């Protein structure tokens, strides 16, 4: 079985003055998270779409889903965890409790604030996760990546042709991901910035799936402006 896991755990404190999590801001009169959920609704592979929300926003999330999508037993809203990866573990626990978990259970995890994800990206994620066990959606880096370990001077400049920017979805065989995550030390867990790294630090292969430049993450007010202009909204909308 294949499950979609929509990560809406963040409270959006990078979005400036906004007083609500960024996934609830609207584009074309519709919350960003609804646009994102709809992309997964349109794909026939998913048994369930599991939306992980901050505890305080669960009711609101349920209400807007009901308002914009209607009653739909394919979507379930549950509470996220303390970190991104704990949130994913909550989703896997939910799947185990309600549908059973086996070695071939696939999760397609996706940021709730990436509504421009495409059918092709989702399709290729599912195929790669089934075949290889794990995949990450990426685009080739266009800017040179500079590493600095002391935030003052450059430590190294990796060769750009080997650099990619990570997007989502990231997709995994759920049981394997959880087993490896549970085997990590607290120190290892502390350095995880995303789920793919759970496997990478244990030497497991994570395949690359080509993303799209426009599969943007709406993190800053500037991103929201771009998203609105892509959908041809008037500036004063």
């Amino acid at each position, binding site marked *: 079985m294949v499950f979609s896991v929509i990560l809406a755990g963040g409270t959006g404190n990078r979005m400036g003055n906004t007083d609500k999590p960024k996934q609830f801001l609207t584009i*074309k009169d*519709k919350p960003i998270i609804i*646009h994102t959920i*709809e*992309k997964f*609704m*349109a*794909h*026939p592979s998913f048994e369930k779409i599991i939306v992980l929300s901050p505890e305080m926003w669960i009711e609101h999330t349920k209400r807007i889903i009901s308002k914009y*999508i209607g009653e739909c037993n394919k979507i379930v809203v549950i509470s996220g965890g303390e970190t991104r990866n704990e949130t994913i573990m909550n989703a896997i626990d939910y799947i185990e409790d309600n549908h059973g978990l086996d070695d071939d259970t696939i999760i397609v995890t996706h940021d709730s604030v990436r*509504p*421009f994800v*495409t*059918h*092709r990206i989702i*399709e290729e994620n599912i195929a790669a996760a089934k075949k290889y066990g794990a995949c990450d959606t990426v685009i080739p880096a266009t800017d040179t990546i500079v590493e600095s370990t002391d935030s003052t001077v450059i430590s190294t400049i990796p060769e750009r042709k080997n650099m990619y920017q990570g997007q989502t979805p990231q997709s995994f065989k759920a049981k394997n991901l959880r087993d490896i995550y549970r085997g990590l030390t607290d120190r290892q867990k502390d350095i995880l910035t995303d789920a793919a790294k759970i496997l990478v630090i244990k030497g497991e292969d994570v395949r690359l799936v*080509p993303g799209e430049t*426009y599969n943007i993450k709406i993190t800053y007010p500037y991103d929201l402006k771009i998203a609105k202009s*892509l*959908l*041809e909204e008037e500036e004063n909308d």
Partner: protein
Amino acid sequence: MINTIYRLSAPRRFEIDFEDISFSNNCIVRPTHLSICNADQRYYQGTRDAKVLKEKLPMALIHEGVGEVVYDKSGTFKCGDKVVMIPNIPTQNDDIIAENYRESSKFCASSTDGFMSEYVEISAQRLVKLPDNINLNVAAFTEIVSVSVHAISRFDNIAHNRRNTIGVWGDGNLAFITSLFLKKMFSDVKVCVFGISREKLSDFSFADETYLTTEIPENLRIDHAFECVGANGSPVAIEQIIKHIHPEGTISILGVSEYPVPINTRMILEKGLRIFGTSRSGRADFEKTVELYEQYPEIVRFLTHIIGNVVEVNSFADTKKAFELDTQKAFGKTIMHWNI
């Protein structure tokens, strides 16, 4: 839902646009197999009138295609049903004028966006369910097939009943389809095909006779004719038809020409000929076409012979590759497997 659309913004240049489509009233179809038509190529290559291009672009091309239903609130279709999409969109009812001739109707990739998008929001009335085991590369160009079926059905209503011999002028896709369906829909009729390429004519194995247009016997006569040539070849084709048709015959014009075509009205008058045009098709024609696919599976097998190229479209760049490949072909349809 945010839908990605691939629009032609200028000749040979596609752009990516986005629009919000609704899960409310209409069906949502995921296109899977799209077929390039000459009309698409006229936009792509910029051979349409400059004023027309300025008015219509940017616009998503492609009006021949099939897909899978991913959502239908009306309950007419199940999720996963394979369907052919009807590009003609009637906006008004009319008891006399068919939906494909109404000036108020819209048409995909002409007066509104075509099917080159991630999803197509479309009314259930504009979808016809396909048999599960149909060859989808063939089903992709059902629209052009339905145009032939429409022309033959109208011919059946208009032409007198002496139908011993019917001539089809042209050796391209439309002529192939029209002559094939004439043989199936009127099994007793002798179908003669007139073309300019011996090689292409050899593919019309179902036809009773084929002739090069430079070698038509002087005394050859036909009862009725279908002109499937179009463009610069129209004047000569129509001239030959008028010459070889019996009096009171009916001529069906299907070939599209960008320019006015001079025709020999003296002989039309003298022979009392009927000439009628057909363009596009409506829901009934699509339904009849799919019925004929099921009734005569050999039709589908013959139609596979005109598949020229099959292109896997996995990226934005592949869309251009498919159109460029299509410009190089001498015959046959280019099918895009729409994975994008």
